[in-house]
């Protein structure tokens, strides 16, 4: 079986759209957000995932429903939940093996946001898959922060929470986990790319990613990658498992190439929206420049 690819990034870093694109390669199986790195056993993982809006558990339930029954109906999701509850003793590795067996010889691609919540999560993935590939996706901290605040406003309470939340710190913490973890990896096992760069010119960068992963970069494969909307998981799911990915992506998963071509990178100079009158912190500036942001 091919070793999986993990797309690792802070939240709001284009992982949904780029994960969706890579996941549609004919030799790849793009997973929804399964968050399996967040514990040693399925029970530990299940207990740790927030029940709020089913953000944490939707992806795994939809995946299991799809793999077990070829459908993501409410009934299939309920049966998937029962399946999980009977296997809480399963190790994370065993759950991954179950998924791989169901998928066949395709490369699994996982972009779960909890992978980067702790360095231990990343190390757990590496321990289970010593030869896995890790693609570090970056996004400018200014646009990442704005996107985090907008999502919070839309789905998690709005302005009252916004005042207490510093998206820059979340960006920095996640990036720190990834950079620290990257030092554990062999040459070529870890690669980094600016999401803005990839989305602005996917025909230039998708073949490079394929070459790195040892996947075909023929025209048919690249064309398939330009259609993330064809994924079984690129839509709102049934009531008890509606998400499993960024809600914005699920509502509009098709690429708008004209809009992507207009993606620009903001400046690192100037005040940040979430701390009026203050610029980015020095650690954020340092890491941003290391990633190629000006």
């Amino acid at each position, binding site marked *: 079986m091919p070793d999986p690819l993990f797309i690792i990034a802070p939240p709001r870093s284009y992982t949904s759209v780029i994960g969706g694109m890579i996941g549609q390669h004919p030799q790849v199986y793009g997973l929804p957000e399964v968050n399996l790195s967040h514990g040693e056993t399925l029970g530990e993982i299940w207990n740790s995932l927030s029940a709020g809006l089913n953000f944490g558990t939707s992806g795994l339930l939809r995946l299991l429903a799809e793999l077990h029954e070829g459908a993501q109906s409410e009934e299939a999701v309920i049966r998937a939940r029962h399946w999980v509850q009977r296997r809480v003793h399963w190790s994370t590795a065993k759950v991954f093996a179950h998924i791989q067996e169901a998928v066949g010889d395709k490369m699994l691609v996982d972009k779960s946001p909890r992978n980067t919540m702790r360095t231990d999560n990343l190390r757990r993935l590496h321990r289970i898959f010593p030869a896995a590939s890790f693609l570090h996706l970056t996004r400018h901290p200014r646009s990442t922060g704005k996107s985090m605040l907008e999502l919070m406003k839309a789905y998690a309470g709005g302005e009252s929470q916004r005042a207490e939340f510093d998206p820059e710190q979340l960006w920095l913490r996640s990036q720190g986990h990834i950079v620290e973890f990257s030092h554990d990896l062999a040459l070529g096992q870890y690669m980094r790319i600016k999401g803005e760069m990839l989305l602005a010119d996917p025909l230039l960068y998708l073949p490079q990613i394929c070459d790195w992963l040892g996947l075909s970069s023929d025209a048919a494969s690249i064309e398939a990658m330009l259609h993330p909307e064809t994924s079984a998981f690129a839509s709102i799911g049934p009531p008890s498992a509606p998400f499993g990915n960024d809600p914005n992506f699920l509502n509009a998963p098709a690429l708008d190439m004209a809009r992507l071509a207009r993606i620009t990178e903001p400046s690192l100079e100037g005040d940040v929206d979430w701390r009026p009158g203050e610029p980015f912190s020095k650690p954020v500036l340092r890491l941003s*420049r290391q990633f190629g942001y000006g």
Partner: protein
Amino acid sequence: MSLLDAAQFLPVASGGLGHSGSTLAHAMVWFRDALYLGASAPAARGPEDLGRIHRLDPATGAWAEVHAAPVLALDEGGKARAAWLGGGVLRQRAGAMGREVGICAMTVFQGAGDAAPCLYAGTMSLWGGQVLRSEDGETFTPVMAPGNGDDSVMSIRGLTGFGGRLFALPSGTITAEGLDRERAPQATVLVSDGPAGGIWTEACLPGFGDPSNRGVVSLCAAQGYLYAGTANTARGFQLWRTRAEGAAPYPWERVLTDGAFRFTHNLSTAAMAEFGGDLYIGTRIPGFGHDPDNDVGPAACELIRLRQDGSWDLIFGEPRFTPDGLKVPLSAMGPGLGDPYNSAIWSMAVHGGALYIGTQNWEPNDLALNGGGAPLRGGFQLWASTDGASWVPVLIDGNGSVASTGVRALLATPVGLILGTQNHSRLLQTQALLHGGADLAEASAGFDVWLA
């Protein structure tokens, strides 16, 4: 075609040729059937720490000191500048210092006003770096005003002849208020078609028109172009080239940008050389792999190969996606030739059909600072390749001297490959003293020179 091996390297000079403050064998050139070596004392403490030029007679193996900087009295401004060389504190307040504390570039060039090829040398000075000229290898005369008119320019480096003109790089800034060894007051390239006459002009726009280029740090003539590499702390180095035709400033073409898309971890170019028709570019982060002034790194160096058409390969370094395609290291080695302590490719030379590269290695410094008393190890490395892609180590661990942290100069000569070192004995002793690190088993200070 065979590569040199460690057993072939014989010492031809040690201990800075009797001057412990001469820590850098900074520049070398072959002139009139002899080796000329420019020595620097970048942390000069007093009038004994001078910029010097030594000559090696290959027939006898005898060295002669052919130039030592004249010693000048320090006024208050000079004393303030001198203090910065010691990190802001001059332990013994000197009343006089050498006009130059280093000879940091040398080349043989014949320009307008030169009846025959002359030896030109760039200096490092408290009063502004200059260019020295010698017709006979015995007498050296300044042919540039200090700092070319700006006495805060600390050094003149990168002397390179191209198209009948001599090019030079102002480097570093020194004033009574501070010292920046990396950044010149202006990022520029100087050119003269008759350096004997002392007239130099700008060969490019400041920073090649990009204010984020904080210095021009490397020059190399290759493929019919003059190449210039920059230091850029915001985006990573840039590489520019020109045919240098017509009147200066010349039109320049940018060939690489954004540190070849490794961004700030390729902060600066370092040594460059032409080999097999391609340009090889070594990279660098100043300091011990971490530039504290700009908070960049730590990161190890890379080697990049540029073809004349502008396409390029990564020889060793960090694999990455780029606008120029997927770049994976052809040597299968990561940054620093796989050693995270190799922070710079300081020198290159083509000898016997192979390319040799010398590193700066800061593992001894790290252990002195953070080793908690662990014995020091590491030191410079010399690597070689016959095809530019496959590399083998020739010398490691400072060739037996842990204080030899860098190969600062490499020169292919009719008598063999000559290697000059950077010696960090004093610095390592200070670091160990202040941070509880192991002291050096050896106390030898001053550069070494090896011949193979």
